[in-house]
């Protein structure tokens, strides 16, 4: 009796040994394949930088093969990923706006990443949002809304090139000085998803655009109205900004061409701007409403999809940890201008030297202490579009601030009602 058991036991042991050694052999032969959707247009240097980074990873990790797929803008990428989820073929990993988390949960598509979130040394401000007790996004290329200014034009306009405007009043007076030397004072992009550039103004005026669990927005708060009135005043009252809707895509081009003194844009555009601009580029915190600097966060997080096999999930964790480690975070920040996601990245010797030469790259990291979360809700695209159109209709003179924001709030309430 006993011997039979032992026999069976050892046979089972042998079989399992065989199986596991077979698995090891298979692993050595065929690496775990990960598909990785990354939001970048097909043009642009980021594509090449990302390919280099992934190649480095693949070479140093023979058991894993990551294939990046470049999927366009954030909006396009999230639309694509949701499409792929619906067809049952999601990528293993994707970098999506951190705000996509509610819709991805609604589709039941993502797996929590608590282990990575808790053992990494990420900036606490970047680890939001935590939803239903879990961390789903791991910060990768996070940005803040910043103010870029042309130091050469500042000098020409009789302004101190080392003192960017500190509050809204100074912003207007500096812009007026710039306007006098024949360039536009300031340009703030207002097409597409302009809620993002709008949020810092609303936050500074006292109220962020949404609560922290994705179910309530504050589009018609008095803060939002103050902010939108200020935007209107920039072009209509002070005449320091061209009227109409300014595209996200042309504002940096105008800045690089020296036809505008200050622009509001993503900190992630810094490297691209520095490459083209032929003048000294200043990067500054968003000017405060009264006394306090504030801004909002943006940019993309890593998400891991449920449908992946456990081997893929394990490999994906390795990849995420590697990509957000201090060395890689420093590289990515240097190449783009995004915040390096961990403070340790700024202690890397190469990075120390780099930021000493290019202090602009430190601005977003220093700004993190003032940063608030980006507008994030369920049915996000629809809710954002509601606010975007309201802002645009006001800027184009078709609607008044109060009614436009009230109606946006009502529409958003209707959309979000089922999630409350």
């Amino acid at each position, binding site marked *: 009796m006993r011997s039979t058991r032992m026999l069976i036991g050892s046979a089972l042991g042998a079989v399992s040994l065989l199986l596991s050694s077979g698995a090891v052999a298979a692993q050595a032969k065929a690496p775990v394949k990960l598909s990785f959707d990354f939001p970048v247009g097909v043009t642009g240097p980021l594509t090449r930088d990302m390919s280099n980074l992934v190649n480095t990873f693949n070479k140093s990790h023979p058991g894993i093969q990551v294939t990046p797929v470049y999927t366009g803008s954030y909006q396009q990428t999230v*639309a694509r990923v949701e499409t792929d989820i*619906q067809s049952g073929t999601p990528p293993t990993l994707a970098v999506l706006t951190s705000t996509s988390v509610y819709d991805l949960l609604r589709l039941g598509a993502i797996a929590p990443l608590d282990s990575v979130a808790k053992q990494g040394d990420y900036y606490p401000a970047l680890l939001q949002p935590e939803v239903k007790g879990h961390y789903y996004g791991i910060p990768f290329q996070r940005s803040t809304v910043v103010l870029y200014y042309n130091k050469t034009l500042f000098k020409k306009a009789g302004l101190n090139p080392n003192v960017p405007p500190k509050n809204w009043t100074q912003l207007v007076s500096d812009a007026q000085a710039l306007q006098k030397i024949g360039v536009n004072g300031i340009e703030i992009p207002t*097409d597409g998803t302009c809620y993002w550039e709008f949020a810092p103004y609303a936050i500074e005026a006292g109220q962020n655009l949404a609560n922290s669990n994705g179910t309530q927005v504050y589009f018609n708060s008095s803060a939002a109205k103050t902010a939108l009135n200020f935007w209107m005043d920039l072009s209509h009252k002070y005449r320091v900004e061209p009227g109409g809707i*300014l595209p996200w895509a042309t504002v940096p081009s105008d800045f690089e061409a020296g036809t505008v003194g200050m622009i509001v844009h993503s900190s992630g555009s810094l490297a691209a701007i520095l490459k083209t601009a032929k003048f000294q580029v200043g990067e500054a915190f968003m000017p405060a409403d009264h006394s306090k600097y504030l801004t909002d966060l943006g940019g993309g997080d890593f998400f891991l999809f449920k449908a992946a096999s456990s081997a893929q999930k394990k490999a994906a964790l390795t990849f995420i940890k590697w990509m957000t480690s201090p060395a890689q975070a420093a590289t990515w920040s240097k190449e783009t201008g995004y915040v390096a996601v961990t403070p340790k990245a700024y202690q890397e010797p190469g990075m120390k030297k780099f930021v000493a030469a290019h202090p602009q790259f430190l601005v977003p990291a220093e700004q993190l202490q003032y940063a608030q979360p980006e507008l994030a809700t369920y049915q996000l695209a629809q809710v954002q579009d509601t606010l975007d159109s309201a802002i645009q*209709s006001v800027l184009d003179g078709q609607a008044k601030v109060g009614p436009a924001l009230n109606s946006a709030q009502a529409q958003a309430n209707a959309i979000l009602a089922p999630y409350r």
Partner: protein
Amino acid sequence: MSTLVKPLTPSAQGPAPAGPWRAWLAGPGVRYLLLLLPALMVVAFVVYPTVATVIHSFYRLDPVGRVTGFAGVANYRMLFAEPVFLQVLRNTAIYAVASVVLSIALAFGMAMLLSGKVFVNRLLLLGIFSPTVMPTIAAANIWLYFLAPQLGLFTHLLGDFGIKNANLLGEPNTALGALVALFVWKYAPYFTLFLMAGLQAIPQNVRDALRTEDPHGWHSLRKVVLPIMAPMLAFVITLAVIYAMETVDPVYVMTQGGPANGTNLVMFYLYQLGFSYYSWGPAAALSGLLLGGLSSLSALSLIALERRSFHWA
């Protein structure tokens, strides 16, 4: 391909002997078999989706597009309760009417100018018809580049005329105007080709007679040319309406429906509802409406064409 009929005497290979296999091939069974697969394909991708679109528009659908219960007309009610949709309808109506009227009027003029001219410069043809031969996406990219504020050439040209900081795509009315201009630019030459063919139907001697008797041409245009051209015009107009209703490419590239939904047209809105908002219920309702509208337009264009040269009785 040669239009000459080859001599029909049996060649060296000759016609194959009529075996049972060949006999079966010539029989009625094989015909049904050959018709079956193509017909099934049409049923699968046209007939079934048509029926399903109509049925789904009366059901509640979840974010993944699955049916979760009967909804009655709730989807339609939701669609029409959406202020954006009403704006989309208005945009589409303005865009379609302006595009169709302008492009057909211009095409008619160009057809009159071009027809009967034997020696038209090739460079001239190349200039006029180059928009026709390129994909709409390429045309939209060209115009985006041309109209971009500050760096676009058109903006500079306007600047020379004293209009500073022109931003045509940044203001709803001018942005919709730019889309109309793109439509006219792209399709007026294409419609010209159709109308030129229509003009061929007027016999040469009639044309010559008209020229001497009615040198200004207004009378003959109304009394002779238009009646002969009527079927072709009807066809081209319905075609233009369909193209205008289906416009989505330039919206996607140039404006993404903005600013403030000022250029959001019905096809782009359907794309947004479905593939960006995952709001499948209202999307199904809009599909149902489009199905009715577009299908009757296509049927109209077929009828118009049938009156000219197409016989299927």
